[in-house]
């Protein structure tokens, strides 16, 4: 079970080494003649560059605390998916070439020669780790096994050994600005279609602006929000919310991707893809950046962006123009998560909401790995959901918050050819969802991650048929009473509302829509 190898055209697009078409099922992986030398030199370089990497290679005592915490071990039953043993695949090579004991005693010291079999094993298991970091929560030494996987992938990348499902989006993002290679005019067309749907639903015409200089806020979200259902309903939720607030913001067709699949290839590639966000913010002259619902996007923004491409001293500390709240937690990056922004709006009573419009839903919440373990965003999404829905149920302890289970498809391998592997990895999460479905009749799984919305839709259709998947801002949009809206007949998905719908009050809502005031022109 594996993903297809990265193609030459994708590797060439970003100047990655050993670009060639290759097939993991064939014996010959078309490696450079001195591949061992390249790999070991890459390892030496990273051991000296990243103190954490050397530490993680040295300090594991094989206590086993992490062993049964990985969703891939739980779902596959393959012992090499125990985080300790997956890391051991690289540690054995480390011992052989970088420790005295390993050099002298070889196998006796747990060392292995780096041969083709070992290399292929490293490749195979590097793509059975979603870098979710659940194991690291349980490690008494704080070893972040995800960082070991990240390094393994970097080393493999030096030999041109990546997977196409990651490399295709990397190349497209580098050349066109987003993972699917959607060009500016198509992106605008997609938004026009979504705005048509919103007008059908609410009677309100929204005309968002693109690449508008002088806007107060640049909004960046993963492209998954505007090219695939059910993410599109969340994206429509953003559009409706911003319109209702009269937010002075702009979309960008250049920084058209919040996600960063470069992060799944190498640190340098992630930095290159990320750089466009600050560059675009600077070019447009915005004051701060607001970001949509995504998982790994936020790990990148929160933990790496500042040191990669900062300081963003040309921006201001994010301040909500509606409530006046200053987001001190974003003082360094100058970029705020939309769930914090919306929770703040609700907290200050700035939105008119009718949660009864979500009464057809019994909702549970899946904490995304990155927003929970990398950012500690636990309360805001729950607060927002409880404000816009009347029926919310938590999944059991041990499966939520910092101990949340991964969707099973993160870190760049939500591909089709490895479907069974994804379903194995998705089992622990699906099992907890099944529990609340059976106990409380839960029928909707909410989350704040674009990959979750894609991956969990598939996972639920296998494990828990009939379970819907939604972004939180789709729920917000259902409940949002917009100024001048017509009587809502359906929810965002066009399904009839099963509640007595009242006419909206004339004075409902907030300020005048700024995107209208801004002319709503696409400056593509």
């Amino acid at each position, binding site marked *: *079970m594996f993903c297809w190898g990265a193609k030459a055209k994708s590797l060439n697009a970003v100047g990655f080494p050993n670009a060639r078409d290759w097939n993991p099922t064939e014996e010959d992986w078309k490696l450079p003649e001195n591949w061992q030398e390249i790999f070991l030199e890459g390892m030496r370089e990273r051991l000296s560059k990243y103190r954490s990497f050397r530490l993680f290679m040295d300090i594991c005592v094989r206590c086993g605390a992490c*062993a*049964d915490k990985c969703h891939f*071990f*739980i*779902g*596959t*039953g*393959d*012992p090499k998916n*125990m985080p300790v043993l997956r890391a051991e695949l690289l540690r054995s090579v480390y011992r052989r070439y970088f420790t005295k004991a390993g050099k002298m005693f070889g196998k006796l010291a747990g060392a292995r020669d780096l041969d083709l079999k070992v290399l292929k094993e490293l490749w195979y298991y590097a793509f059975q780790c979603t870098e979710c970091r659940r194991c690291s929560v349980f490690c008494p030494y704080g070893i972040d096994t995800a960082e070991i996987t990240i390094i393994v992938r970097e080393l493999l990348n030096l030999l041109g050994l990546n997977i196409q499902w990651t490399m295709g989006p990397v190349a497209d993002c580098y050349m066109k600005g987003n993972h*699917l290679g*959607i060009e500016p005019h*198509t992106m605008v*067309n*997609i938004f026009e*279609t979504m705005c048509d*749907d919103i007008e*059908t639903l609410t009677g309100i015409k929204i005309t968002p602006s693109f690449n508008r200089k002088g806007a107060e806020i640049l909004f960046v979200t993963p492209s998954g929000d*505007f*090219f*695939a*259902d*059910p993410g*599109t*309903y969340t994206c429509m939720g953003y559009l409706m919310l911003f319109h209702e607030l009269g937010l002075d913001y702009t979309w960008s067709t250049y920084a058209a991707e919040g996600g960063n699949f470069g992060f799944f290839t190498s640190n340098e590639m992630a930095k290159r893809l990320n750089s466009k966000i600050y560059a675009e913010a600077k070019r447009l002259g915005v004051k701060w950046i607001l970001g949509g619902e995504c998982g790994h996007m936020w790990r990148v923004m929160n933990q790496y962006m500042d040191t990669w491409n900062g300081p963003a001293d040309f921006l201001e500390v994010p301040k909500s123009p509606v409530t006046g709240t200053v987001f001190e937690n974003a003082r360094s990056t100058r970029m705020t998560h939309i769930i914090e922004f919306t929770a703040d709006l609700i907290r200050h009573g700035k939105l008119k909401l009718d949660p009864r419009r979500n009464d057809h839903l019994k909702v549970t919440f899946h904490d995304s790995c990155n927003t929970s373990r990398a950012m500690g965003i636990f309360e805001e999404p729950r607060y927002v959901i409880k404000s816009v829905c009347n029926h919310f149920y938590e999944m*059991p302890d*041990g*499966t939520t918050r910092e101990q949340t289970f991964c969707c099973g498809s993160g870190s760049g391998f939500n591909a*089709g050819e490895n*479907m*069974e592997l994804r*379903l*194995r990895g998705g*089992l*622990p999460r699906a*099992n*907890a969802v099944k*529990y609340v479905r059976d106990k409380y009749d839960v029928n909707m799984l909410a989350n704040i991650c674009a990959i979750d919305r*894609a991956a969990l*839709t*598939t996972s639920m*259709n*296998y*494990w828990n*048929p*009939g379970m*819907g*998947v*939604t972004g939180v801002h789709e729920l917000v949009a259902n409940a949002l009473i917009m100024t001048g809206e017509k009587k809502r007949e*359906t929810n965002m*998905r*066009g*399904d009839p509302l099963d509640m007595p719908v009242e006419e909206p009050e004339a004075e409902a809502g907030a300020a005048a829509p700024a995107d209208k005031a801004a002319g709503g022109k696409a400056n593509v």
Partner: protein
Amino acid sequence: MDLKSFLLEKRTSVLERWLGDVLSSYPSQTAEFIRNRKNQFANPVGNIISEGISGIFDGLLAGLEADAQPDAGVMADFLEDIIKVRAIQDFSASQALGFIFSLKKAVRDEVGALGEGGEGLHKELGRLDGSIDRLALAAFDVYSQCRERIYELKANEVRNQTYRILQQANLICGTNPAETGKGGGNGDSPEKKIG
């Protein structure tokens, strides 16, 4: 003592033998984890298998009543839960479903342990074997449905990932509400019909 009474008395022991046989299809470290970790959320595979074989066993025993037939409905859910897991794990079809037949061995080992005293029970085993065989046939159907569902999920993902773009390129011009951007999405996607 008839077979049903005997198996009820030896329920724990038979299930332990049967579980052991199911777990022998996993590597030893994994089998140890599946057997010993009792938390249903930390160890869903173990919980599903344990609950499943218990439910199937009880269903089969109920079917040993005079003139009774096994309640296929009760057993079907347990059967589906187990097979859903094994259909996506690294097993061939025969490996995935072999656990059903290993119940015969678990029962025979238990009856065999009685020595000559168990001869009377041997005569009743044919009826239980027939029920297990029928269960196996039902299991083939469930397994096929699971595999078919996986292929449909693959197809649907491709469809969902490209739908908006095809729509923009005017390559989709259906009149079905699901094809016009309304009423589509997760709720109306074809896979809903599968479950």
